[in-house]
């Protein structure tokens, strides 16, 4: 199963994402903000990164940009967890190098379907 990095400053959202993915058999690492995600990404290779946009310390957009600057993260799927009211954030995320997005609110089924969509 896949190694997934879940990045969200909200413990409840992160918990929900991690729990759902672990339930589906994935190995999930959690990070509280973009900076901690970068630290985690430096020490381990992930198959997929799921990241919130609005986070303290380092937001999701800057995190994507920094991840894409690493050669080993060139083609790794990165999905932004974003809210529908922020269409412009989707494009900002894309411009930074994100693969796609998952619109909040989503339920566990939608999350798993999207992950499946990316990982095949």
């Amino acid at each position, binding site marked *: 199963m896949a190694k997934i990095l879940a990045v969200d*400053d*909200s*413990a*409840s*959202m992160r*918990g*929900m994402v991690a*729990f*759902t993915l672990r*339930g*589906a*058999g994935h190995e999930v690492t959690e990070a509280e903000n973009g900076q901690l995600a970068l630290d985690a990404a430096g020490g381990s290779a992930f198959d997929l990164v799921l990241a919130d946009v*609005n*986070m*303290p310390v380092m937001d999701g957009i800057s995190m994507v940009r920094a991840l*894409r600057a690493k050669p080993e993260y*060139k*083609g*790794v*799927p*990165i999905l932004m967890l974003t*809210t*529908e*009211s922020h269409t412009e954030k989707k*494009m900002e995320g*894309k*411009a930074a*190098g*994100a*693969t*796609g*997005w998952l619109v*909040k*609110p*989503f*339920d*566990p*089924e939608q999350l*798993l*379907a999207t992950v*499946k*969509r*990316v990982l*095949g």
Partner: protein
Amino acid sequence: MATVDLSQFHQTFFEESHEGLDAMEAALLALDSGSTDHELVHTIFRAAHSIKGGAATFGFADMAAFTHVAESLLEEVRSERRAVDAGLIDLLLRSLDCLRGMLDRTSRGQPAADAGSEALRAELAQLVAGAPAPAAVQASAAPATGWAIRFVALPHLLQTGNDPLRVFNELQTLGRLEVLRAFVTESAPADFAALDPGQCHLGWELRLHGAVARADLDAVFDWLDGDCELAIAPLAAAATEAVVATPVPVAAATPAAETPAPAREATVASGAGHTDGGSIRVGIDKVDALIDMMGELVITQSMLSDIGEHFDLSQLERLREGLAQLERNTRELQDSVMRIRMLPIGSVFNRFPRLVRDLERKLGKQVRLELHGEHTELDKTVLEKIGDPMVHLVRNAIDHGLEMPEQRRAAGKSETGTLTLDAHHEGSNIIVRISDDGAGLSHERIRAKAVERGLVSATQPLSDDEVAELIFQPGFSTAAQATDLSGRGVGMDVVRRNVRDLGGSVGVKSVAGQGSVFTIALPLTLAIIDGLVTTVGAERYIVPLISIVESLRLPADAVRRTAGGGEVFRFRDEYLPVIRLHHAFGCADAVTAIERGIVVVVEDGGQRVGLLVDELVGQQQAVIKSLEKHYQQVQGVSGATIVSDGSVALIVDVGGVVRLGRRGKAA
């Protein structure tokens, strides 16, 4: 169907939302006091945004709807389309109060929205000028019989983590996919050696047959916006039939995309009705310290068992060393474990800027709030319960203590009064001080009120401290006219009782014209006390060190009988009642002659009494085990513990014994 019980995340959501609202409040107050730091606006926005996302995810629609409008308003502020003024800050503060209420109602399982929240939501919505209505789901256009798609990947497509194969897989789930042509784009380098496998130089001409809605088709390509050139046109009915080109089947090259998802066993037992024991966030450093200590303890243990295995007297010194090390480890481990429950008092202090601001406006006073020692750590239980008494004291200080600006000016003081909250360690106690530079306690008025209430007689001589003590008497209120803030009878006696329930004490010092200082002394933890082990007959009793004034041996003639049948003795300048613990607790075979026992003078809430015990054994830290939980509540006993020889000792509840003694005397 895979079901994940989301209710297990509700408590986390409530907690983090409250934290978010606290951060939002602090940031709003900072903006209110003139800060222009843009990061503050981000903090406020982020908090609202997170709550909205969580509320929507966990199905709290009312809260999601409310935060949605609040967030829209904040988005205008963040993008500098709306200026921050006092009115907006007021509105946002009211909104976060409203959200707190909604959170509380939601956590109790009640409907979150009420008339107040709906009205406020309408007010917010009105303010959000020209806010776009939530995007309605676009009605799907009449499905065509099929689509002609020209899909050309841009070289960087793979680097965004996307994959054309995914697109084909998804298209196949919509209808029958036919690849007319696959081609290499002009971006490809002519020289094969120069080809970068990370770049994509391919394009496809596709036909998708079937009644596929355009929206579904767009959804397949949504993530590829900017990563490909895309042209989509409906197939003319005739054209569909006219297709003669040999279709290239893609199915063979791709794994079946429609395999039903295997049943996932993510199902969790329903969380309905499970009670929450509360949780605590612990810094990693504290956990690491704990693991360090544990490591040391294991080393000591193996050293001791090594000594024990081949012990002879020559090793006595090593055994002693080992035991000393064990004692050190145990103490350090105890400290580390205790520290897990310790949280900075800042979380309580943070309530006050808002409270002070509200009171300022309401009362027309000017107050500068100073906070010191926010990092001082307190036991979580103590921390949770100290907030209310502190709120009461702060309200009192602003309501009764600080004067109106004109009065202050007349008294030659700055028009702005200063209220200081300070926390620091003092021995095994935490001292919290609430001081104001107001008028101080009015001894005349307190006295007059106390006489009116029958608490003291008009002629009784009272020291200043004794007069100040009167405000802690039940039912006492000095406010000439009860405001809606304080002076409603729930007064300082309630504050004192709350603090006392936490094993602490509260007192006041005041200087007329210069202000008052309320001092709360709290134990570091509720779980452990430093105590003096005493014997009474065959029993052992532990008296908390914090309440001991002195221990002394009295000659027989030092004790006098009072008319009521009680016994008193002279201690310093006052007569104190003697409470014979063997009487109070009904112990057999105890020392009954005063001169053969020891009198331990203890103090509780300004009241001193002497406790008669047989002997003093020594000082010990006692881990309090609740009697109530294991047996039942016993008057005069706050709990039990195990002393060093393994026997059980009862911990004396000094306040309870004092009351017991007083009742015995009255009887």
